[in-house]
């Protein structure tokens, strides 16, 4: 069905005087010039400083490219034996691979009792440390000495005032030479990074649990059918927008005061912020649902549950998952900054290193953050690609 319509040829529009256009462009250029000159001054841009003060940053940069990763530690020979208090049986030894071996007599004692520690099979004539290793993992030095020429140890110790019944006495013989291993900074950073990832995970999860139901209330196509629904829609959307506009940094500061400095404050800060951003994304996804499949599945005689499962869920769940993983990725990045204001995680550690001017240690944390963020970025992209 075509149409044979003739449209009148439009008259050419009036050509403006040539001078006016040029004048307007010049005026805009002048205005822009004024804006940028003022901006240059007000932000005190001084490119010369970059070169003149380079000597201040050089040592710092040197440290940043040489992070504290490995350290030399004394080689140790460790052996232990269990000791039972107050009638409890002696627990099994923890370390069994060592060539040295110690025995306790008696192996069952009470607080304040004298226990004889005798051991053999150690390196001869080396310094040795006796340590009480209590049930909760706390180590207390009991005494120090030297192994004899045959590699034996003989000592008498007093059972310290401890809680619990199953403990260990440990012998640590310091050997010649040192070993290379991951530095203490690396271990600390590792634990804090793990904390950061979980901080982001918990914050994101908290947000998902609340954002999913809220997003349905914030979806116009579902809510704007009745006046009450419309009112709820606007309330939810306003809450989302306000919550989203509060920086997680500020939220973290507030929560650090409220629940104390630590990862929990970070979880709450990221959670609140993510509720708003996820809620908005989810709602928009619900709003963009294609009604066609719903109509088609309804027409097959499907029940409400089946319609939701086969026409609604496939349309919203994959994007929900994609948004959520992306948010987790963002939250890992944010949680490092949140640590600076008391939100726990690796950021808190990094801030401490910076405050102590321990740049090599700070470098370790920075590199760890970079690695984890890059890995999360890659992972989340890969998952999103697969899901959507």
């Amino acid at each position, binding site marked *: *069905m*075509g*149409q*044979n*319509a003739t449209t009148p040829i439009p008259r050419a529009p009036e050509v403006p005087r040539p001078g006016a256009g040029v004048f307007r462009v010049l005026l805009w250029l002048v205005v822009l010039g004024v804006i940028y000159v003022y901006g240059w001054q007000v932000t005190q841009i001084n490119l010369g400083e970059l070169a003149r003060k380079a000597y201040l940053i050089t040592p710092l940069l040197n440290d940043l490219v040489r992070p504290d990763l490995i350290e030399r530690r004394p080689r140790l020979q460790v052996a232990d034996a269990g000791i039972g208090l107050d009638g409890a049986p002696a627990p099994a030894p923890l370390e069994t691979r060592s060539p040295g071996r110690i025995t306790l007599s008696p192996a069952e004692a009470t607080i304040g009792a004298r226990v004889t520690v005798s051991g053999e099979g150690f390196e001869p004539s080396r310094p040795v440390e006796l340590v009480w290793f209590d049930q909760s993992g706390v180590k207390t030095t009991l005494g120090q000495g030297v192994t004899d020429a045959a590699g034996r140890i003989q000592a008498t110790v007093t059972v310290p005032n401890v809680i619990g019944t199953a403990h260990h006495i440990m012998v640590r013989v310091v050997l010649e030479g040192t070993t290379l291993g991951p530095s203490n900074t690396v271990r600390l950073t590792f634990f804090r990074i793990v904390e950061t990832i979980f901080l982001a995970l918990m914050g994101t999860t908290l947000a998902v649990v609340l954002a999913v139901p809220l997003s349905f209330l914030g979806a116009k196509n579902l809510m704007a059918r009745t006046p009450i629904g419309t009112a709820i829609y606007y309330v939810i959307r306003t809450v989302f927008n306000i919550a989203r506009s509060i920086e997680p940094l500020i939220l973290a500061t507030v929560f650090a005061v409220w629940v104390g400095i630590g990862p929990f404050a970070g979880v709450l800060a990221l959670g609140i912020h993510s509720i708003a951003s996820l809620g908005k994304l989810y709602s928009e996804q619900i709003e963009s649902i*294609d009604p*066609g*499949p719903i*109509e*088609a*599945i*309804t*027409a*097959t*005689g*499907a*029940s409400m*549950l*089946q319609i939701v*499962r*086969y*026409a609604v869920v*496939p*349309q919203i769940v*994959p994007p929900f998952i994609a948004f959520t993983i992306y948010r987790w990725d963002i939250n890992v990045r944010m949680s490092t900054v949140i640590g600076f204001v008391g939100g726990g995680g690796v950021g808190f550690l990094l801030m401490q290193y910076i405050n102590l001017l321990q740049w090599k240690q700070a470098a370790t944390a920075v590199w760890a953050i970079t690695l984890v963020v890059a890995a999360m970025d890659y992972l989340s992209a890969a998952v999103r690609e697969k899901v*959507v």
Partner: protein
Amino acid sequence: MRGAAVRVEQLTKIYPDGTRALNDISFSVNPGEFLIIIGLSGSGKSTLMRCINRLVEPTAGKVFVDDVEVTALEPDDLRRMRRQIGMIFQQFNLVKRSPVLTNVLAGRLGYVPPAWALYNYFPRDLREQALRHLTTVGIPEKAHTRADQLSGGQQQRVGIARALMQDPKLILADEPVASLDPATSHSVLRYVEDLNRREGTTVMCSMHFLSLARRYGTRLIALKGGEIVYEGLPVEIDERRFKEIFGEEAVEVEIA
């Protein structure tokens, strides 16, 4: 399987915004007919189709399918009625992110326990049946492809396979070829025609190409402004009648 008889009595649909989409329409369709409904966009074709299975709730009037008054059915009975009425859509209305096989199996949802949906469970014989229907429409190799990876013609064939899953005694085809090119249109309509000829399934199909209507329809009604302006054999429509239906401006477009 015998096709269904459809009777529409004084059907009227007024939308909340005041649009009168159907105005006191009455007609009937005999079992095994291939009824073509033509008319311009906005003439009420889609509304009429959706009033038959009550995707759109009529304002007044009655619809009977095999002497069961669809317009009087309670929700559960309506679902049992709907599962015998296959529907094919202009935009195919597949669940785009789901595999083709799932889309076809969805046609059977009216017959299976709703709780199965929680596990996305379909018994083996249904899965085999779905694959057979995909073979019927010529795309068995696409069973595990995502629906949105398919071309328009292939998607519409999935839509037909989905309707076949229902063992329908009536097919409502709402402009099934309006989004397809002429060659694909024929291949899609041939599957519908095949179902109509072989199984005796009644077909109500809306379209706006007269050449296709003449080729496939056994009877034709024309809608204009929500009213029936012509009822008769497709071949009887000549240029004068055509202009009556579509207005003086209209020119008939041939589809090879």
